[in-house]
């Protein structure tokens, strides 16, 4: 990478490409090519499966692996217990799968395997994917809410003790804030993951370009940028965990709304 000005396109990493020659695979006119996004979903699923199988041996004296799995399940169990109460137990499988899948996806997308020519793809940095997660959560809220409370579910939009003249104003506001939930849920995860990856790529272009401009520039700009990249990578690992947690936490809060109507 001596003299040429490296063109690092920070958006190229989000490109979806068909793989294994399945470009033209179509069902009913819709292209269903097996893309790199799908490949990394499969990898995340398989990694999660292996992780869970390894820890579900139900040994009397749990080993390290089983302890790791039990920490995660206990964590989600406690979260639902605290936010939804004892009715929350039946949502543990859903919230747990959601949390672990997002966590594995975020962390796998950060793997530095690009060094070996395999480019990890963070599928949670796509609005289509996180949007489907959000629709799942929101759908569960709607189904549980209407199934359990019927049309009384609409009382969710009129908080207790609202004065009568205020109801025409409060109702639309609460309705809009309710309907925005899936968007904010999906947007938060997708943008947080995308922003971090774009930032890393922009900093990497600083490193490459500054060293391309000469050793002086490299020492002045490139090395501090590289150190910053290391720090940002550590921050990204934290963000990967926090975003998965926030997604699960907000999903459980919305489920609490559906279960208990305030």
């Amino acid at each position, binding site marked *: 990478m001596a003299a040429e000005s490296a063109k690092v396109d920070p958006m190229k990493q989000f490109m979806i490409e068909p793989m294994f020659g399945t470009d033209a695979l179509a069902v009913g006119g819709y292209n269903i090519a097996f893309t790199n996004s799908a490949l990394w979903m499969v990898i995340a699923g398989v990694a999660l499966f292996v992780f869970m199988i390894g820890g579900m041996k139900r040994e009397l004296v749990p080993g390290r692996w089983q302890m790791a799995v039990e920490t995660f399940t206990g964590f989600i169990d406690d979260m639902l217990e605290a936010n939804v109460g004892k009715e929350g137990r039946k949502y543990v499988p859903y919230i747990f799968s959601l949390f672990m899948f997002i966590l594995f996806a975020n962390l796998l997308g950060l793997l530095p395997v690009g060094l070996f020519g395999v480019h990890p793809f963070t599928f949670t940095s796509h609005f289509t994917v996180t949007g489907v997660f959000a629709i799942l959560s929101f759908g569960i809220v709607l189904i549980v809410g209407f199934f359990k409370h019927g049309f009384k579910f609409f009382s969710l939009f009129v908080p207790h003790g609202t004065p009568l003249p205020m109801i025409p104003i409060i109702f639309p506001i609460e309705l809009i804030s309710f309907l925005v939930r899936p968007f904010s849920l999906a*947007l938060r995860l997708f*943008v947080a993951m995308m922003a971090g990856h774009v930032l890393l790529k922009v900093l990497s272009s600083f490193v490459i370009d500054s060293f391309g401009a000469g050793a002086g520039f490299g020492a002045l700009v490139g090395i501090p940028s590289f150190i910053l990249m290391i720090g940002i990578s550590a921050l990204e690992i934290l963000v990967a965990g926090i975003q998965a947690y*926030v997604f699960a*936490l*907000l999903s459980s*809060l919305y489920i609490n709304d559906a279960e208990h109507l305030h």
Partner: protein
Amino acid sequence: MDAEAAKLIGAGLAAIGAGMAAIGVGNVFGSFLESALRNPGAADGQQGRLFIGFAAAELLGLLAFVVAMILIFVA
């Protein structure tokens, strides 16, 4: 002003929103830490609320980022 230039200036202005969100997130964690040190016993029970506040503050900064990205790459 050139439309392209206006877009880039707008994207730069969106960074103000990101900075404001940084203040908000710092406020959330700062206030939590301040009160957690006063009453460490109650701190663990408020972790969920801490992250709800964090998520709400962060979302607005991320929206500013989305505005910048839309201005640069989409509009």
